[in-house]
């Protein structure tokens, strides 16, 4: 196929844009944050600790205390739950396992929030 001058110029410009675009996206992917899931344990608005959740991990319990009250948390196989608590409503226990990014459990009486980090499908949940 015969090419005119203008066509060649156009092709060159195209190539330049293609290469620039690839470089930009390449860098963006390479520098993206690694996808590690962790749970934030927040009490009274303060971040108490960040717990790494890894697939295949053995069950491990720990206790978060609040003015004579407590929540026993369990991590296992990349997920976390409140396994037991002495709050009146036990909403936090009923929440079950948190496994997806953005999942959260709340214990209002003990002012406790457990939230999984990472990109969630939604920006918030109304209730």
């Amino acid at each position, binding site marked *: 196929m015969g090419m005119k001058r203008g066509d060649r110029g*156009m092709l060159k*410009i*195209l190539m330049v*844009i*293609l290469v*620039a*675009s690839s470089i*930009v*996206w390449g860098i*963006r992917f390479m520098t993206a944050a690694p996808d590690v899931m962790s749970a934030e344990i*927040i009490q*009274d*608005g303060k971040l108490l600790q960040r717990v790494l959740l890894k697939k295949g991990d053995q069950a491990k319990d720990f206790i978060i205390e609040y003015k004579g009250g407590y929540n026993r948390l369990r991590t296992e196989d990349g997920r976390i739950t409140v396994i037991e608590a002495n709050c*009146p*409503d036990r*909403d936090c226990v*009923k*929440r*079950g396992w*948190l496994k997806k990014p953005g*999942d*959260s*459990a*709340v214990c*209002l009486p003990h*002012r406790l*929030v457990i939230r999984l980090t990472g990109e969630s*499908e*939604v*920006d*918030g*949940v*109304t*209730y």
Partner: protein
Amino acid sequence: MNIKVNPSRSIVYLAVAAVTVMLFISLYVGITGWRTPIKAQRESYRLGTIVRITLYGDDSEKLNDALDLSMEEIERLENLLSVNIPSSDISLVNRASGKYPVKVSEETGFLLEKALGWSERTEGAFDPTVGKIVKLWGIGTESAAIPSPEQLKQAVELTNFRKVFVVHKAEGTFVQTAKGQRIDLGGIAKGYVTDKVRDLLINEGVSSALIDLGGNIAVFGSSPKPGKWKLGLQHPFMPRGEYFGIAEVSDVSVVTSGPYERYFESGGVRYHHIFNPATGYPAQSDLASVTIISEESTDADALSTALFVMGFERGIALLRELKNIEAVLVTKKPEGTIVCVTKGLSEAFILKDPDMKIEPAAR
């Protein structure tokens, strides 16, 4: 004259043009999306719930200052409006019930008038004088219990928004209630505080924010992700945080009310926190949850409570009369769980639970 265009050649030109445009877009998105906005977030326990404010912008110091101011504003308003704080405007009014008019802040007066307006409009399905009933049941406190029918009868008689008077004088705003009445703004105050925080943030020059006061959410500006803000609506039959659908919105407030939010169980029966002012008992509603989407969170808060009490038929009838209010109603019917979405929202609502069926609201 006869211009001949080689068809294969014009297709090549078209293709080249298309690829060029796509590459430009890719390059543009690659560069502009690079500088993702800074996110600043604060979480605290306020208004008896978890408060979370998330701001996006490019100046982290400015965002954190705005967060400080927001938290101070919430505390200030809680101190005016909370029925549980003895020095609040509302507590002062309640202690003076049947005795004398109490001078309140302009804001308390404004919100009370707003509440009385919705009481009128919902024929008492929403009623800020429900306080005696709320206190008797004590749901959400350690002393939650079923009151005696006599106690409830008395409390229902005291629940009457028409006996509340807000008077504006030269010396300020005054509120007078009937003897024994107890005002509780629990069904509207969170919405009002949400609106006030939004106004404050806009005044502070914040361009994009998500305000979450215990599931009472308002968003403004652009979402950090492409497209609009995506808000999940709490699934009425699943644990907190699981949603049955997503509303894609911008510059509005979204509030959901349902019996699952707060309740206590006695003798195998569940007693929830949304009372029917006419009976004094938790509202027996054919709705499993009500979500209201409106510009003002104050309205969304009051209406979500009112519509739950009113039930599906009356609720839909009211929605038909209201402008700029959208809703998602979840009803349990023999044929399954039906999700009813108002017309203005049908494009922006995504149903996630495959077991639910969607039905447009006749409007």
